[in-house]
């Protein structure tokens, strides 16, 4: 009995020690929101976003320095995951966020129609190089670019097509390509929408015959690195990030028939439906993101700026204007209205295994 008692005590101590270690690894809780001073941002703001965690971390630091009195928190999720979450929250009548920086204009159109967005006419709108909502419900804030990429360590550029068309048709690539999932990634949905407009639904059939693997960015990049894939369709930022941070050799191919530019949007949730009812702060943060300083943070995160005549470029990228001139147009209204149809066609042709 005595031995057991001692054992119990030892176990409890061990448990306590472990818990303490793990808990003390955590950060200190930020101080409660400061009182609102005129024109200054204070209080809490939660932003749902599909930007990568690495970028979020950098951006949070910038925002904390810029708005020291506010407690701005990003919540990451893939577009699909967040859309599911938002749909559930809309059902419940209240969202868990105050702002969103995710998906693409077609989703903004849907949210606007659902009546959950806050209207704000930003003075920054005249400098925008991309389409925005004329009533002020959403603005583009960062430009994603769907491109192709390859690994010069494993394959030579001569063995690889330089077009989106070739990606889906070149027999040398059969079984060696990968792309993101239009069901879970907004940018992938935009891409298959633009590609359909340009090449018709035949493009999906071709992708299916090409045995494209549908998977997310990190998995695809690793497959490119190991040589399991010859070419992947991926967002430019993922490749640039790897090039800068890891001195990776992976290289972007800007397709001759155009890459797909996706001006991802920033939106504010209507006060009464938002998590913290802090719309004034959200407006100021919107203006900041659309300012040169805010855009510098975006470009630092390997995405392109939405501003006209803006010089800064993501690491190793070619000029935005040049990409824009050659890009494949996306019809956002159609992408919104025909989303289910496209997803279904994509599933039928690509996702379902066909009998031999």
């Amino acid at each position, binding site marked *: 009995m005595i031995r057991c008692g001692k054992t119990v005590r030892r176990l409890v101590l061990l448990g306590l020690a472990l818990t303490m270690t793990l808990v003390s690894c955590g950060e200190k809780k930020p101080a409660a929101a400061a009182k609102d001073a005129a024109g200054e941002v204070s209080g809490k703001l939660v932003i749902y976003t599909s930007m990568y965690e690495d970028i979020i971390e950098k951006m949070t630091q910038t925002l904390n320095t810029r708005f020291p009195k506010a407690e701005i928190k990003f919540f990451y999720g893939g577009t699909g995951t967040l859309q599911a979450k938002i749909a*559930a929250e809309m059902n419940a009548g209240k969202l868990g966020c105050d702002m969103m920086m995710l998906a693409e204009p077609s989703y903004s159109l849907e949210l606007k129609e659902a009546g959950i967005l806050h209207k704000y006419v930003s003075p920054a709108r005249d400098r925008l190089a991309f389409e925005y909502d004329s009533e002020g419900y959403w603005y583009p804030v960062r430009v994603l670019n769907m491109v192709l990429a390859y690994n010069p360590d494993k394959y030579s550029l001569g063995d690889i097509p330089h077009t989106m068309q070739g990606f889906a048709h070149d027999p040398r690539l059969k079984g060696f390509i990968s792309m993101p999932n239009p069901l879970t990634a907004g940018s992938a949905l935009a891409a298959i929408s633009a590609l359909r407009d340009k090449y018709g639904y035949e493009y999906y059939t071709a992708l299916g015959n090409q045995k494209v693997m549908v998977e997310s960015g990190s998995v695809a990049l690793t497959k490119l690195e190991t040589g399991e894939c010859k070419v992947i369709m991926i967002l430019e930022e993922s490749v640039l990030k790897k090039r800068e941070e890891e001195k990776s050799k992976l290289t972007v191919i800007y397709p001759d028939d155009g890459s797909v530019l996706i001006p991802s949007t920033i939106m504010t949730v209507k006060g009464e439906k938002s998590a913290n009812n802090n719309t004034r702060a959200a407006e100021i943060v919107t203006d900041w993101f659309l300012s040169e300083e805010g855009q510098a943070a975006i470009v630092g995160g390997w995405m392109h700026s939405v501003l006209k005549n803006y010089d800064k470029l993501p690491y190793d990228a070619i000029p935005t204007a040049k990409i824009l001139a050659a890009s494949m147009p996306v019809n956002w209204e159609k992408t919104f209205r025909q989303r289910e149809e496209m997803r279904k066609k994509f599933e039928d042709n690509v996702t379902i295994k066909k009998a031999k």
Partner: protein
Amino acid sequence: MQTRAAPPEKRFYFDIKWLVIGAIILFLTVFQVFPFLYLLLRSVFSEGRFSLDAFKRVYTYPLNWQALVNTVVTSFFSMVFGILIAFPLAWLVGRTNLIGKKFFRSLFVMTYMVPPYVGAMAWLRLLNPRVGNLNLLLQHLFRLDRMPFNIYSVGGLIWVLTTFYYPYAFITISRAMEKMDPSLEEASRISGAAPLKTLATITLPMMAPSIVAAALLVFVSAASAYGIPSIIGAPGQIHTVATRIIDFVYIGSQEGLTDATTLAVFLMVIANVVLYVSTFVVGRKQYITVSGKSTRPNIVDLGRWRVPVSAVVLIFALVIVIIPLVSVALTSITINLGNPLSPGNITFKYWERIFTRKPIIFSARNSLVSAGVAATAGMLISLVMAYVLMRTTVKGRRIPDFLITVGSGTPSIVIALALIMTMSGRFGINIYNTLTIMIIAYMIKYQLMGMRTVVSAMSQIHPSLEEASQISGARWVRVFRDVTIPLILPSVVAGWFLIFMPSFYELAMSTLLYSTDTKTLGYELFTYQTYHSQQTASALATAILLLVILVNWLLNRLTDGEFSI
């Protein structure tokens, strides 16, 4: 089966045990029975009236059919192979003089402590049909003209599912073997039967109920796995019901949710059929294998087979456990996964990242809390249930036992969906977006592993000590606290970890239940794995594994080998 403590009282009196059982039944009714029934109802009443439209829509779509077939096929074979692996291993490790059996035991249990989706990633790199390392090695060794294996196939999926879910069977069967009365085997040996014949004619039939229980566990775990099929299956266009359900939920519309529910009903039905068969058809053939006194099973001498058999087990361990785990650990320090590991290609920044990045630390804390609470509350219930089952004849004591078995037999995704739909305020309880809903989900899913451990430990303890305490005037609670618990403490610790570990890195349920403030480690790991950085995910997984090894070692040291996971 057991010597019971006291004969039931004839006259009516209030028994505190009823209160305890009642509370457990109430808990299970509110958080399990009601949500499950609601889910069933909703699939046929989706538009406010009775309709089978959703069923028609979902089950006539070819992709879903493929998913159903894939799920049944992969889970079935994982179950068969899992048992074929687990039974001999459990016997060799538990009942023979295999070399290094203690080490092997810890090693096989270790796989239970690793998140399956991380293992999937390792296998993907080892056996992919283009540049898989193991594939290349085998091709080179045997001068083949093509890669021997393709992980993106139904076979590949079965392989990975088997390697990660057989530990469930191994743990279950080992436990039963340890408590088995060896006198029958001894009798067989004395009568001249060879060890293998004894194994086939005595051990195997006696173990049948545990083998069936273990098979069920593997089947259901494989059928509801999300991580492995989404990583291994999807690139080869092999979908399962679990991946389809998550896809439907991610569509984000009400129709998507209805379709997910309808598909979930399939998983629920099939799991319950298997459960029914195993409990009421096979399970009825209970052998009296446990005697009142504590016994130590005899050890079979492998004789001249000892070295070769040990070598085979070692090779098995190398392939199934060590190679994938080492591959995960190496990934965590590799910069460019396309190049060999050389001094210039090594970095520890991913390790630094997991200890400094706030969302990871925050999620780790959430998981620690929710898994810790789930395991502790689960063990409390298990202890009470074990006592009530083994030491009393209270009416209705089988009801919670049955409900707990049904809960664990239900696929995780179904549990999560049912909880979301019923616990978001529509019926007066709103715990969606809180850690509470996670804790409840974990308890429903993993409670059984803990309970079985305690029940089996309790069955080995003779009630005489408890009776002595009772005669000396101690009340039920006191007897329980001062006599029973200290006696079975090693099993309580083991059971606690069996609930804690899978909850700690749980993925399928957390993916549906997480919110801004309740992200969990499993979800974080999976997003890093698939979206941000595989190296960071590998570092995180290796860290979890190292922590488990450390805790196991500490437990062993502090308790002189009495406690281990």
